[in-house]
């Protein structure tokens, strides 16, 4: 029965997505005038605030100087891009950024869903509310605080090494070996953001029709089975949408965490695109280089989400556009 429930939840979804193939006709346009006018107004807004500033991308093709401004700075064509892609370091920071981006995405995504579902299984409202409130508090701590505590805990005589030694292990120098850095960053992200990220899933869970759970209980479904056949399928659209959005963000693996946790010994794995841009662009007053790197990131992001979106479309899943 539970399988059936989940299948029917899925089927209902799918139907909604594919059922409506509306023909464009004058009558239909007229019927939708409210929708069209409203979206047009927002389109104007979006164009002004999000698209017009993209004119600044021209900076990437010139040697921007404040004196000459956007319009009269010297045109250098693709020189800035050439500079980036001919530098072996830049290729290395792309690798680092991607690796940490993917690792963070997987870890934070998985933990947020897991936490939301498990929290939903806590039945005492007061405890549930309490845990939830605590869980999102680290979101308000700045990275410098969180990384400071983490650095302390993982130092040679920090608490983690004390535990390792108590079990007879040898202390680990977490910050001088390259292999630990990416997992540490992923952990830091999970630590700080799990509770916060879970909020969206909790909201989605509230919309599940309780009748589904009741029916499943009557059929003798256990908790795990209810999670897998009711809760998860019901929040699946939310999961898919957030997954798609985040796939486009893998190159935005960040700056602060790596900057604060990294050090010279493990530079080869800790530097990200944003740190590179700071070192080579911003601190040298070179806005053009940063813009070029930004364009590169945008292009990659958009390619990634278009691919991911098409895959979702083919699989009949929820999609962005």
């Amino acid at each position: 029965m539970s399988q059936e429930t989940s299948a029917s939840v899925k089927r209902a979804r799918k139907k909604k997505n594919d059922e409506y193939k509306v023909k464009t006709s004058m009558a239909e346009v007229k019927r939708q005038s409210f929708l069209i006018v409203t979206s047009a107004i927002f389109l104007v807004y979006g164009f002004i605030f999000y698209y017009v500033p993209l004119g600044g991308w021209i900076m990437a093709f010139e040697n921007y100087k404040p004196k000459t401004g956007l319009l009269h700075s010297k045109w250098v064509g693709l020189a800035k891009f050439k500079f980036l892609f001919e530098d072996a370091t830049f290729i290395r920071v792309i690798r680092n950024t991607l690796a940490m981006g993917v690792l963070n995405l997987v870890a934070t995504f998985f933990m947020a869903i897991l936490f939301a579902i498990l929290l939903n299984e806590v039945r005492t409202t007061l405890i549930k509310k309490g845990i939830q409130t605590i869980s999102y508090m680290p979101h308000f701590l700045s990275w410098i605080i969180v990384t400071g505590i983490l650095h302390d805990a993982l130092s040679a005589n920090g608490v983690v090494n004390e535990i390792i030694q108590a079990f007879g292990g040898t202390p680990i120098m977490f910050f001088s070996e390259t292999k630990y850095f990416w997992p540490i960053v992923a952990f830091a992200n999970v630590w700080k953001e799990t509770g916060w990220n879970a909020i969206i899933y909790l909201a989605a869970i509230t919309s599940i029709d309780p009748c589904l759970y009741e029916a499943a209980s009557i059929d003798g479904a256990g908790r795990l089975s209810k999670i897998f056949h009711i809760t998860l399928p019901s929040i699946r659209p939310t999961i898919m949408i957030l997954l798609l959005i985040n796939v486009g963000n893998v190159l935005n693996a960040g700056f602060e965490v790596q900057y604060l946790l990294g050090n010279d010994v493990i530079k080869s794995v800790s530097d990200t695109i944003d740190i590179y841009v700071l070192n080579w662009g911003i601190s040298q007053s070179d806005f053009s280089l940063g813009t070029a790197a930004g364009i590169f990131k945008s292009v990659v992001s958009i390619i990634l989400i278009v691919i991911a979106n098409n895959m979702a479309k083919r699989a009949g899943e929820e999609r962005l556009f």
Partner: protein
Amino acid sequence: MGKSKLKRAKGWDLVFVILNGIFMLAFVVITLYPVINTVAISFNDGIDAVRGGIHLWPREFTLKNYVTVLGKQNIKTAAIVTVARTVIGSALSLATNALLAYVVSRKRFLFKAQVSLFWVITMYVNGGLVPVLLLYKNLHLTNSFWVYVIPGMISAFNMLVMRTYMQGIPDSLEESAALDGAGHFTIFWKIISPLCLPVYATVTLFVAVYQWNSWFDAMLYNRMKDEYTTLQYELMKLLTSVMQQGGNANNMKSVASGSRVTPVTVRSAATVITMLPIICLYPFLQRYFVTGLTIGGVKE
């Protein structure tokens, strides 16, 4: 279904509940630690805190850090501006994002894919500091309060979260209202919105927290305008100034020594002070997405 299966399910449930309890306990301990640690440091003497090793309780108790933070000039103006931008910003964002989400979640809408794509792209592109500044300047948004609430008003992320939620609402509701002659705005206002309170609460929380914590826009667009300063900007200024331990080699003067506050303790106090109001606001929103409101009936 047999009775034995029911029993087995109950047995597993017990295991599940116990494991879940352990997981939650571990989770709470791990997430609560940095928060308590921050509170402890915020009540500790700055010079003493330099030695490190403060965990759950202050070693040398003092209120000096809070006095320093609350004594910062402009803190009152900043608090008023921040509350204003949080309230106005959240209201505006909620209204516009919800309306837009309603439009693109209509299955019959002819341009839903195109409009969605238009907004999705905005999440991944960015014109950069200088062009944005020039734009705002030409729109006369700089040196004004409105720069806080107008530019970021619609965010594709929040809109998409709402859209997804609205798509999950059965079409039959909309259809029957349409049969009764209700227009789109009525359907949006009377039928869809009341069902969307959980996601509205979520988005309101996101926007409110974003507004509450913002400072970069205050620094960039209202640098010389004290009347539009924000809380986090004032705290940021305080922090960078306390942090200035003669770090600039050009300025080889002695930095006043003897002050009992340090960046670490002031930062902690500032964090606690900004966190408190949000935590107080939280229960009002939380009831929507933790206990939830349900369509026709109390959920258990």
